[in-house]
């Protein structure tokens, strides 16, 4: 029986996109509550009734129609997925988890360090930004090598691995990976554009405009 429930998040949350794109593939019915009066980020998620269901008080958070509650974006995406997306074999499921872990541990920190100052939400630190750029080059090189002989990250079709890594790279591709920077990573660019042009991705992300000029920090 397909999953149905409510996803609490703030608008345009890349972590929430993972579950929403997964639901587009699996047919799970996920209603999003992200704006007042239904959900007011910073207030609703601090109320006793919300904390009773989601003790960590973080978003995204998912509540099934059957009352099943789950937090942590990767767990929610996994729950609303189909077996195909999770990886049908033991090997595929482990490889999906490998890329999901890799995204959180190796991509999120440098991507945030580089992008946040360009959005004006964090102090710019030249040394940290330069280090982050090198880390992003290392990650793109690794992905480019992996995708040289593959269409998708795991197996022959889209899985949670692609959905998760694409969503984790979103801000980089929108904000700072200008054509000259991303040029050396042709396999990653081809894979990224193939994914975001899938109707299930488009239904959630809309028309994605890739970065044309690397955003500088917004003093």
């Amino acid at each position, binding site marked *: 029986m397909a999953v149905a429930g409510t996803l609490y998040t*703030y*608008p*345009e*949350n890349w972590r929430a996109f993972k579950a929403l794109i997964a639901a587009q593939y699996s047919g799970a019915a996920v209603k999003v509550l992200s704006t007042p009066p239904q959900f007011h*980020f*910073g207030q609703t998620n601090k109320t006793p009734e919300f904390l009773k269901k989601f003790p960590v008080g*973080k978003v995204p958070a998912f509540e099934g129609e059957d009352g099943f509650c789950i937090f942590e974006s990767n767990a929610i995406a996994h729950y609303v997925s189909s077996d195909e997306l999770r990886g049908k074999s033991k090997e595929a499921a482990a490889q999906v988890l490998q890329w999901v872990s890799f995204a959180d*541990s190796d991509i*999120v*920190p*440098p991507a*945030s*360090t580089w992008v*946040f100052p360009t*959005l*004006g*939400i*964090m102090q710019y630190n030249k040394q*940290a930004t330069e*280090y982050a750029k090198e*880390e992003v080059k290392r990650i793109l090189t690794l992905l480019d090598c992996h995708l040289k002989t593959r269409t998708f990250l795991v197996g022959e079709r889209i899985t949670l691995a692609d959905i998760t890594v694409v969503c984790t790279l979103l801000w980089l591709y929108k904000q700072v990976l200008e054509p000259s920077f991303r040029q050396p990573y042709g396999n990653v660019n081809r894979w990224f554009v193939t994914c975001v042009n899938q109707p299930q991705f488009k239904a959630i992300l809309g028309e994605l405009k890739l970065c044309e000029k690397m955003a500088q920090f917004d003093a």
Partner: protein
Amino acid sequence: MAANFLVHEKIWFEKFKYDDAEKRYYEQING
């Protein structure tokens, strides 16, 4: 708009420093 919410994200910005220190520590221990 979306950027304003991002500021609430908990990111371990220092992770690379800890990863690096841990790697060096265990490389030293293992000679």
